[in-house]
């Protein structure tokens, strides 16, 4: 029964998207908040991430987009006085914060109860030592380990545990300094380095269980002790690769019932003994050759795996966990999918789910591709199929990284020895390498020996490889086609292999009756009649996706695929809001997406959900079943935009801005004509196809120039070139991918970058606000600090922006959203980019202005005018608050990635600071990004020659703030000339003591390192930046960012006031 004492609940989100903590917590948090509100609970939500759905007023009653610090949380608790805190929804960040509040006595002071799992339970699961003791008491085996602080102790511990051992230094990031030691010598080497890198000189020595099967269980327990398993999952990559970077399959495939039940019983034992109330994830290592296991980890909260398990089974874990926290028993909570059964049962699957990680190596070209215990993926995709092969093929083409099969990376040029060596490496290309080995008739047993991947999975890859060669035989028979489609070979791949045109393959399939059917994810393997239209496609089975018969008009909404750098959770926010708006307008909504972490793929977000890859062929299957009346592509980012042509071909009307007008904005020539007609200036530029043309164009324009491919997002492949050498290199890089579109070469202008999102109804244009970038042009807009309202630009420039935006929106016949970026230099305004679609800044600007941008755009698309919704056109009055959007990076997790910023986007997420004063908002934004300074008040400044003068006032400011400044020779002398007190420090390549030693003293607050641009950038700087990041020192690589930080630090943290953005968000809600 519901606990009647719970009336007002504080929910903490997980903060900005970083590697290891992505959209899954927005999904879980949103679902849980909705479950709480169903019970009339007043929800107070805190999350620094504005791109989330959970920070909407429709999800929570009070929304604080504030830094997740104990100080700020204390102030919010003081103000809101919630009676309870639900700590298990915000990932590790949220859980840690809740625990800190508890340990500091703040919860006690304000009489806030932790609901769901208790603090004691969380400690027993989270604290390394207590966890070990708890497991030992329970009789649950764990891998032997010992914490050591010296070389001698470490060697002794390793000898006692037995080699091989894993060494993990404490408090280093990205797994740096750790490794596996097979011998005493190796152990000595790793220990010496690891102890030095660790701030507390601590290393964990652990028994190496690499190579064991990694199995996970998602379990749930209610307050009365009822326990169930939602799902188990098997990692294809054995222990040693982080589960977030592994290919994962659900349910387990290679476990006998004896093994399955042994681990299931153990997880239920653990959750019961720990008295967890809610969801829990248990990770096991299972010996591949005998009946032995150990517990790797217990997460007493919702997690990435629980999100995956929810989507894989249809069982809404976060919702059920929230209900349990309110006091409900499992058998009192209805199964919302079947509506016939209760949450107290275990889902049975009759399909196979494959999850693949989305790794960011396309953005970090210099980074190491190796996979290990540190997660590197920014996101993931999930695919559902009747077979493992089908699931794998669907997952591969969902990745949005130019791959559609096991042939997409070509290793045929390698010698057998080279290939054999590659098999020993664990990286993101492993399955493609295995496929190549199988093509060369390497034995499954031999590959198993090298990779430790279970032979069952290897054989499945072999099935796919065998089909490749069958498809090369002519003529094509219906039987071969049927088998290939059941294995989910896309038409394009069949066409490439067989030599038939793709359309011909499609026609042959159709003629032979080989068409996709859709099956339901129903939680119960068809044992009960389910009501929830959640589908996946399969061949050779009965179609279950019957038209709803609602008589409503149907809208197809394309999602945005996996979270990756450049396309984050913002686009899911837009898709979900558009879906809701269409539903309110009386449409039947149909969603296609493949990202298990998101709200858009929750079973009740759209009326009908198709969990499918976002390729033309896959979308066509849905179109042929649903025959939608229209599709919207302007909310799903580049993924959706890329499908416009295909949708048109399939006869689906694109609602909103016409595809031809979208093309006009992207096509350089057509766009130039529009600009000429409207008289809007832009930096001079040319469209080219080859490196030679690019060099000619650059010469004509004068260096530096900006080089980029058209039709990209997140500045992928964008570079500033300062000479011909740069051009050569960059064009080469861009052309690594198939290039259907031309390359743009523009004059690079320095100035203030500003950005707007606008809504146009065909007659009038509404601009919620102007956002100004702190960093000057040259840094990708997604990596810039963005301030609302614009501070430094003149009234005349603002008027020009408004006029230009109106003219452009009209000229492009925009219906819905448009995003425009300008460069402002004094009163001069020129255009750098126009995207007639939703952008990254939409959730942010919606929340800080209170204008529900996506709702309005959707209603405009449905035919309403802005005026009829009660909105005045033009630039809207400012909201009275300052808002700072701060990019957040995950550099520490990607070894070898350069952290210096440039035109290519590198941030994984963002956070927001909102306040009545600019510096306060800036301070909150920095704090939200995890930069809580000052600490030691020591810093290093090293600046390229041409920026040293500019740095002087910033350095002075830091000195005033009490900072002790170390500077490299050139910087130091410039500073001293201008009276800035500083100490000289030698560069990294010089003899000790140098800058590296300073970093390793673990006593620095930050490093400001302004590097040279282009290929002249020094490797010395790179080394320092990497070391700093890996030891947890904040690094700034732009003068403007440094200035913003010094301004922010001048506003005392203790005076930061929490702002309920719910009030701002509600302010402008009109007649919608």
């Amino acid at each position, binding site marked *: 029964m519901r606990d009647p004492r719970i009336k007002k609940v504080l929910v903490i989100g997980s903060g900005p998207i970083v590697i290891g903590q992505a959209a899954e917590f927005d999904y879980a948090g949103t679902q849980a908040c909705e479950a709480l509100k169903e019970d009339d609970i007043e929800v107070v939500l805190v999350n620094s991430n504005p791109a989330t759905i959970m920070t909407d007023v429709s999800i929570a009653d009070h929304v604080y987009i504030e830094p997740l610090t104990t100080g700020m949380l204390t102030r919010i608790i003081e103000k809101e006085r919630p009676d309870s805190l639900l700590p298990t929804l915000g990932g590790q960040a949220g859980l840690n914060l809740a625990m800190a509040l508890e340990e500091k006595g703040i919860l006690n002071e304000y009489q806030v109860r932790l609901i769901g799992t208790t603090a004691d339970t969380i400690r027993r699961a989270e604290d390394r030592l207590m966890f070990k003791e708890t497991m030992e008491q329970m009789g649950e085996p764990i891998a032997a380990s010992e914490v050591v602080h010296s070389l001698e102790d470490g060697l002794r511990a390793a000898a006692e545990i037995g080699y091989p051992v894993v060494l993990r230094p404490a408090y280093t990031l990205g797994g740096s300094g750790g490794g596996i030691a097979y011998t005493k010598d190796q152990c000595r080497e790793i220990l010496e380095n690891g102890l030095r890198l660790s701030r507390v000189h601590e290393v964990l020595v652990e028994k190496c269980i690499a190579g064991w099967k990694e199995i996970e269980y998602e379990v749930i327990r209610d307050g*009365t*002790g*009822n*326990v*169930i*398993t939602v799902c188990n999952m098997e990692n294809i990559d054995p222990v040693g690769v982080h589960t977030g970077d592994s290919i994962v399959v659900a*349910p*387990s*495939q*290679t*476990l*006998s*019932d*004896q093994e*399955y*039940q042994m681990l*299931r*019983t153990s997880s*239920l034992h653990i959750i019961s003994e720990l008295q967890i109330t809610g969801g829990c994830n248990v990770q096991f290592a299972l010996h*591949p*050759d*005998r009946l032995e296991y150990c517990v790797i980890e217990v997460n007493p909260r919702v997690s990435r795996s629980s999100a995956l398990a929810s989507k894989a089974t249809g069982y809404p874990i976060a919702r059920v966990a929230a209900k349990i926290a309110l006091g409900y*028993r*499992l*058998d009192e909570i209805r199964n919302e999918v079947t509506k*016939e*059964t*209760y949450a*107290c*049962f*275990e*889902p*049975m*699957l*009759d*399909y*196979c789910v494959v999850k693949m990680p989305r790794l960011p190596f396309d953005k970090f070209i210099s980074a190491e591709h190796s996979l290990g215990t540190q997660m590197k993926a920014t996101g993931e995709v999930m695919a559902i199929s*009747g*077979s*493992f092969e089908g699931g794998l093929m669907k997952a591969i083409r969902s990745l949005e990284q130019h791959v559609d099969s096991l042939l997409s990376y070509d290793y045929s040029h390698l010698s057998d020895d080279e290939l054999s060596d590659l098999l020993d490496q664990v990286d993101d290309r492993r399955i493609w390498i295995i496929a190549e080995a199988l093509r060369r008739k390497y034995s*499954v047993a031999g590959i198993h020996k090298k990779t430790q991947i*279970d*032979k*069952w999975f290897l*054989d499945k890859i072999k*099935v796919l490889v065998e089909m490749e060669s069958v498809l090369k035989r002519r003529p094509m028979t219906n039987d071969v086609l049927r088998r290939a489609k059941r294995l989910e070979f896309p038409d394009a791949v069949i066409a490439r292999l067989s030599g038939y045109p793709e359309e011909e393959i499609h026609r042959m399939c159709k003629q032979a009756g080989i068409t996709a059917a859709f*099956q339901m994810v129903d939680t*119960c*393997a*068809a*044992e*009960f*009649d389910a009501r929830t239209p959640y589908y996946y496609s399969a061949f*050779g*089975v*009965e179609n279950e996706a019957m038209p709803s018969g609602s008589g409503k008009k149907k809208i197809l909404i394309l999602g945005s695929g996996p979270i990756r750098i450049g396309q984050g959770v913002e686009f899911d926010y837009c898709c979900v809001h558009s879906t809701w708006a269409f539903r309110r307008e009386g449409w039947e909504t149909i969603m296609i997406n493949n990202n298990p972490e998101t709200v858009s793929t929750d079973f009740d977000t759209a009326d009908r959900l198709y969990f499918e890859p976002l390729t033309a062929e896959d979308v066509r299957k849905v179109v042929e079943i649903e025959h939608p009346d229209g599709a919207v592509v302007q909310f799903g980012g580049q993924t959706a935009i890329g499908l416009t042509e295909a949708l048109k071909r399939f006869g689906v009307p694109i609602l909103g801005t016409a595809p031809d007008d979208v093309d006009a904005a992207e096509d350089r020539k057509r766009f130039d004509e529009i600009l000429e007609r409207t008289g809007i200036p832009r930096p001079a530029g040319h469209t080219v196809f080859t490196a030679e043309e690019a060099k000619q164009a650059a010469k004509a324009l004068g260096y530096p120039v900006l080089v980029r491919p058209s039709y990209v997002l997140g500045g992928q492949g964008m570079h500033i070139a300062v000479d011909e050498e740069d051009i050569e290199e960059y064009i080469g890089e861009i052309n690594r991918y198939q290039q259907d579109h031309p390359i743009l070469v523009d004059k690079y202008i320095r100035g203030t970058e500003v950005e707007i999102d606008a809504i146009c109804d065909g007659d009038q244009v509404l601009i919620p606000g102007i956002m100004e970038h702190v960093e000057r042009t040259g840094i990708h807009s997604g990596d810039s600090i963005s301030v609302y309202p614009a501070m430094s630009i003149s009234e005349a420039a603002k008027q020009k922006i408004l006029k230009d935006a109106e003219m452009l929106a009209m000229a492009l016949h925009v219906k819905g959203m448009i995003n425009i970026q300008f460069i402002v230099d004094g009163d001069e305004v020129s255009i750098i980019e126009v995207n007639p679609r939703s952008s990254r800044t939409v959730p942010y600007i919606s929340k800080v202005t209170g204008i529900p941008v996506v709702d309005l755009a959707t209603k405009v698309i449905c035919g309403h005018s802005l005026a009829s919704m009660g909105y005045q056109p033009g630039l809207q009055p400012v909201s009275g608050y300052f808002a700072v959007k701060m990019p957040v990076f995950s550099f520490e997790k990607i070894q070898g990635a350069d952290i210096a910023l440039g035109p290519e986007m590198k941030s994984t997420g963002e956070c927001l600071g909102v306040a009545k004063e600019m510096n306060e908002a800036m301070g909150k934004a920095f704090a939200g990004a995890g930069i809580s300074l000052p600490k030691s008040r020591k810093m290093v400044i090293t600046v390229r020659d041409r920026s040293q003068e500019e740095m002087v006032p910033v350095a002075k400011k830091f000195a005033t703030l009490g900072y002790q400044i170390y500077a490299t020779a050139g910087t130091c002398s410039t500073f001293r000339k201008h009276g800035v007190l500083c100490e000289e420090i030698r560069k990294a390549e010089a003899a000790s003591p140098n800058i590296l030693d300073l970093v390793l003293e673990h006593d620095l607050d930050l490093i400001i390192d302004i590097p040279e641009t282009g290929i002249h950038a020094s490797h010395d700087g790179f080394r320092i930046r990497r070391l700093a990041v890996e030891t947890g020192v904040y690094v700034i690589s732009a003068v403007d960012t440094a200035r913003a930080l010094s301004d922010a630090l001048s506003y005392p943290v203790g005076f930061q006031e929490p702002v309920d953005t719910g009030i701002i968000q509600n302010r402008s809600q009109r007649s919608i």
Partner: protein
Amino acid sequence: MKAYLILEDGTTYVGTAIGECKEVISEIVFQTAMTGYQEVLSDPSYAGQAIVMTYPLIGNYGVSHIDMESRKPWADAFLVRELAREPSSWRRDNTLENFLKEYHIPGIAGLDTRSLTKHLRRNGTMNGCITTKHYEGFEKKDLLERIRAYRVCDVVQRVSVKEPVFYPSGSRNGKKVALIDLGTKRNIIYSLEKRGCTVCIYPADSAANEILAARPDGIMLSNGPGDPAENTGIIREIRKLYESDIPIFAICLGHQLMALATGAKTFKLTYGHRGGNHPVKDLSTGKVYISAQNHGYAVDANTLDPAVAVESFRNVNDGTNEGLHYLGKRIRTVQFHPEARPGPTDTDYLFDEFMEMMEGRHA
């Protein structure tokens, strides 16, 4: 080779023949467990039935002697979506395909098992023929008549031991349990042995007097196949066991027979409960357990004599009876399978309660 499943309503499913190539007529039932296909096949309760696995990938880890729940597989046929071609496990002695052949069990792979499951769910369990022959016209009409005429009968006799079998315990003061073999799974025996019991397995048709004469500390009625009401002779003997004051624990068919022996009725469920995810609620504590189940019939709780027995467990999904407490008796019976294999072991504690009953600690 093509193989067909022809249901009694004429619906036909096509796939590829696996296992032994022979024609059988049987009752078609579906199982939702995702692991444990070998335990399912070797569970005597499936005698007279052909099994459809709803999980599509079957045979992944091969077969192992460890997983045999009786001396041989009993199912008439095995119907799957995909049969693993390369099973992988350190435990495997054989492939599932070879195992089926070895025991002469026919099967079909490549079936749309979900569509078939939905058909059975909507129309109820029905008979069908598994064949590689393509029937048409008159022949098909004749076949359908034969299919409809099929009845699962006399199966308990088929699966039960013919002579008593002793499993002496290692411990000297272990309890002596008489296990009436209605089609017992090995794990029932192991669950008793593990607790130090000496187990004497009796043929299903053993006379109550004979069993009582051996003075067991407790009597266990096992699971088993078929329509419970058909076993009139056994029910008569069980009534005599009921009259004695020896503690009795019964599972599945044993539970149904005890209910029938004490005046209650059983009925056939539309499509039965077969899987490892069924929630059952302990009505005395309110606690819910996930149980392994395999039954096509259930005890009608409305027919219970309130003076004889009360419901102890109930299915959370459909409210059917899952267990009984006999008043004034040390008799407990459950519909589900505390011995698991395959399935969750959450209710394994019931064997401990049986031990306590025998030790006189439990009312």
